């Protein structure tokens, strides 16, 4: 198959949400790597990832801190933030952050956002 499936990493401390996201993304044909915490992701490494979806409020490193770390290592890696707290979302939106979803988020919208974050990969230019 010429078309390589994009790899999406999901980080959330809630196993139920992790599970449901994995299911949703797999139904859309993505390869999903789930991590219960930012630290687990970092241990695994970022090299083979195409998109990162991370919850913001987590024990240990928060989603925002993870995003900042990823920014340094892989500036090209798109990061999509999700949160259950609307006030945080409001604040971030006000700060210009666009790839951000509030729980409960709209599934198709999320898939679309992932899709739009992967133009190059999808074309398979490498």
């Amino acid at each position, binding site marked *: 198959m010429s078309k390589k499936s994009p790899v999406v990493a999901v980080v959330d401390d809630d196993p139920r949400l992790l*599970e*449901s996201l994995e*299911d*949703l993304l*797999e*139904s859309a044909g993505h390869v999903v790597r789930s991590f219960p915490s930012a630290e687990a992701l970092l241990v695994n490494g970022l090299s083979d990832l195409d998109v990162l979806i991370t919850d913001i409020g987590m024990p240990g490193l928060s989603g925002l801190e993870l995003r900042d770390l990823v920014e340094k290592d892989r500036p090209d890696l798109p990061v999509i933030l999700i949160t259950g707290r609307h006030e945080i979302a409001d604040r971030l939106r006000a700060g210009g952050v666009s790839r951000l979803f509030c729980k*409960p988020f709209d*599934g198709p919208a999320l898939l679309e956002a992932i899709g739009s974050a992967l133009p190059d990969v999808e074309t398979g230019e490498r």
Partner: protein
Amino acid sequence: MRVWSDRPELLHLAIFFAAYVLGCGFAQALAIIPETGISIWLPSGLFIATLALASRRSWPQWVVAGLLAELVGNVLWFHNPLPVALLIFAGNALEAVVGAWLVTRFGRPVRLDSLPEVLALMVLGAGIAPIVGATVASATLAWFDMQSFSAAWPLFWLGNASGVLIAAPLALALFQDWRSGTALSEPRWLEAAAIGLILLGAAVLSLSAYLPFAYLIMPPLLWAAVRFEFRGAAVSLALIAIIAAVFTISGDSQFAGEPGSQTLKQIMLHLFLAVSAISAVIVAAISRQHQAALFALSERERELSQLVDLLPAYIRRLTPEGRPFFFNKRLTDYIGASLEEINAIDGDRLEPAVKDYVHPDEAGDVEAAIRSAVATGQAYSLKYRMRGIDGVYRWIETRAEPLRNQDGTIAQWYSVSIDIDEQVRLYRELEEREGKIRRLIDSDIIGIVFWDLDGRILEANDAFLRMVQYEREDLRAGLRWFDMSPPEWQEKHARYEAEELMATGKMQAREKEFFRKDGSRVPVLIGAACFEGQSTQGVAYILDLTARRQAEAALSERERFLWQVVETLPVMVDCAAPDGEPIYRNQQLREFLGYDLEALDGTGKSRLAGTLDAGVHPDDLEGVKTNYAHSLATGEPYARRHRLRRFDGEYRWVETRAAPMYDPKGETVQWNVICLDIDGEVQTQEKLRLAQERLSRASQAASLAELSASIAHEVNQPLAAIVANSHACHRWLMDSPPNLARAKVTAERIIRDANSAADVVSRIRALFKRSTATRSPTELGSVVAEGLGLMADEVVRLRVRIDTDIESDLPLVSIDRVQILQVLVNLMRNGIEAMDVTKGAGVLGLRVRLMGDTIQTEISDRGPGIAFPEKIFEPFFTTKEHGMGMGLAVCRSIVEAHDGRLWAERNEPHGATFIFTLPAEAKAAK
């Protein structure tokens, strides 16, 4: 003296008769001239003695007895013719009567006690009476020619006289002395026997021999008369007479002989017998008289001695050397020792005797006094204590004086002691009592004055003089208490005191004043009493009250000071009796209350209850009364804050503290209460509390937002999972062919997560179910006010007007203040936010009112109104863009938890009204 009764005893008559007959026989035996009976006529003596002793009324009987006896004698011996015999007897009887009459007339009583009586008997009885008998008998003999008168008469007289001399004393002695019957002692009997023998011998010798020898008989006769008086004389004479008669009859006597010489001898015998009788009787009389004198002397001496013993004094007689030789009976009785016992001990008895009987304190003085008196011959007098037989010393006063001989030397000492113990004791007592009184007067504690009603001071002690600052010279110069009395007291005295003294003899103690010498006044306490039996003089007792007055003044000054302190202390002070009844309130408290202590009296309530009911805020009254009652019952201090009604009707917060005050026995004397107006502090505190509350409310509001966020997060997590899974499931089913296996797994996850979401909601509900323990009776109005305060900022910001209509006097509600506040704020915010969309019409209505037994709160807005009045209370229902839909649901659950209801109604023409009710708890408070 009547010896025999008027009627003589027959026995006596018989004896008399017998003796008479014997006398006749004796006369016959010694008859000088035979056949004439002229002889020693003993019956004459018997007759006289008998009649002298017999009562005169009985004389005829004796005479008859004598007549019979003489007739018997005549028949036996004399043989005279009856007329002669009768006439002779008549002479004899006449003689006896005359003799007895003379003897008893002049010589009464017929006792042979003294010489004059004996002489009287001899002269009258033996001398004169026989003249009668001799004359009658001689005349009779002459008449009958038996003898010549002149020859017979002397013989008759001599015979009768001799008979009287011999027989009368014998008869009298017999009748009297033997009747009295004093027995002779043995030596006297011997003596009598000896005299009898000598007399017998002398008589035999003298009568049988030569006539002058007859007088040898005289010494023993006189001896008998001296020693045995009349008894001796009478018995001796009788003896001599008998012997003489015997010799005469036998013829041996010198008086017997030739008839020629016989008459002479007969006469000589008669003379001899008469002389003997006279001598013996006279000597006996003298002896009797002497004996009587001796007896009288000894009687007198006995009486004197009795007198000495009777004297209430102790009497001693001492030798010139001071040795006692006589103690009277009282003395020996008192000391319990006789003179002999004291003198029985050898040596100088003075010192030991004094030591034994005189009190040791005075023994030395007594001994010295006696020795000095013996040495100088001076009388002395001493007082000392002498010990009696009972061991008790008694005071005696002894005076001793010497009795001197003619030549001035001391014959003996007389010492007389008188018991003065009682006097000494009385004197001591008197002295003691007087000493006590003197002590009272001399002690400078109390002023004592002797006064009279004329206003003079008769005597005063130093204490009084010092009190009024006068000198003793002033007193002597004549000090007048009346002048020392200030005029107003003079008046009082005249009006009351004098009268009291007159009426009762006393003046009760009272306070008055005297002028001192310098004119200043001295306050005194004075009481007075009249002397006994005197109404114008008496004694007064005066106490200087200056010091006490000063002390009282100092005390009252102190009291005034303390009073002022209490009155002016910037606290309210109240004192209450042990039962809580107020008895004092200071000025601050009176001014605060606006009425005095007694103002509420007479309302039927106790003063305490009245004050509490009138003053304490109704909300606090119950608690205050309970606390008061507890403290009063237990004695525990009381402390409490409450509101107290001020005179102007304003209730102000006060802090009241009370503590009991105890007496030394631990009994509660009173309660001291202070009360501080702390209204300012309470208001400040209330403000502070409100500020804090507001702050906490703000933080509560913040936490409400926080809570909402948390709830949202909690719900969002499962929701997010559900949403994601739903899409996944959808996608699995939309695949061709549908991936049913994955879809099934995903659908199961959706169910799981949905349940999880439901759990979250349950948890939240549980979260709001707060315990009712935090509820307290609260004024809803205050909560409303608080809510309004919290909303104030928003109201201003959103330019909303709030119209409030809150009923006053609402009953309390038992609520969790914070929860109800939350409901209120929620509803108000809802209303305001509803109106947000219709700008310009921001009017929020707030109304609280009592509906039956519930308090109803209505919050109305002029917003767009609500489409589904019930649906809006469902959780997560919202008409707002941002609302989560929890607010109204939570509100309803809170209200329902308070047993109230919350619902919404449409407003006409537009807007909505949210209404909630809460059950009223208590009755309306004022």
